[in-house]
């Protein structure tokens, strides 16, 4: 019996083999979404827990890697919806040119604040498309939506960010 068939039938040894083969990849994908190593480790275990739990739904003729990545994306999305905010990045990021470093840091701080306020589904696609620069069709496959909808969500995320930034800037000026 093939490995995937044994896994689908509930064989724990087959599951362990798959876990060891794919844990690095699932972790690497997850950490790029949640941007925290500890949370990504927990979510990797959660992903494989879901994989094991729903093993009967997996078609052994199917693509295990793609299935695992989709489950990992859903687990990360659940975290973005319900979990605490990601660890803040250090403030001493490299400057982008000639602009005043203090102004740049302030702008980035506002961007981060606005970004964390985005609805989870927009934050997920914005992270993958704009920060990690993943192609739309790959994002579509892992999130389980069309590439056109990914494009729409990215567009909306940018639009919401622009509005939030305008209001944060107005608040800063008013202070």
């Amino acid at each position, binding site marked *: 019996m093939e490995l995937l068939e044994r896994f689908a039938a*509930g064989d*724990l040894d087959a599951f*362990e083999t798959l*876990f*060891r083969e794919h*844990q*690095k990849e699932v*972790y*690497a994908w997850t*950490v*790029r979404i949640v*941007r925290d*190593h500890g949370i990504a*480790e927990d979510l*990797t*275990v959660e992903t*494989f*827990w879901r994989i*094991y*739990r*729903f*093993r*009967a*739904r997996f078609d052994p003729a199917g693509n295990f890697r793609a299935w695992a990545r989709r489950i990992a994306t859903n687990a990360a999305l659940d975290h973005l919806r319900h979990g605490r905010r990601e660890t803040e*990045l250090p403030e001493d*990021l490299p400057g*982008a040119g000639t602009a005043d470093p203090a102004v*740049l840091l302030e*702008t*980035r*701080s506002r*961007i*981060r604040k606005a*970004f964390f306020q985005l609805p989870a589904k927009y934050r997920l696609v*914005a*992270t993958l498309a*704009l*920060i*990690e*620069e993943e192609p739309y069709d790959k994002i579509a496959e892992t999130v389980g939506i069309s590439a056109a909808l990914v494009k729409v969500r990215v567009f909306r995320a*940018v*639009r919401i*960010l*622009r509005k939030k*930034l305008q209001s944060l800037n107005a608040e800063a000026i008013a202070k």
Partner: protein
Amino acid sequence: MTNKEDDKEIKAHLKAAFPPLQDTELRRDLWPQMLRKLQEQPAAGDHVPWFDWALAVILSALLIVFPGAIPALLYHL
């Protein structure tokens, strides 16, 4: 500034605020953690808890008694 230019600027700021992660390497084997979770919460497969069945029966009964609630339920789903 036009919205398009504004969007480009936002994307640039976003990339600067969240630089792509360089270190995405898993530093330890997570199998022991996985095994612990499996022991704590044995996977039930596709087993549906009795509470979910009870909820489904109550909901069905309510919808039979109050069919007018169906559109409201569909709206909230």
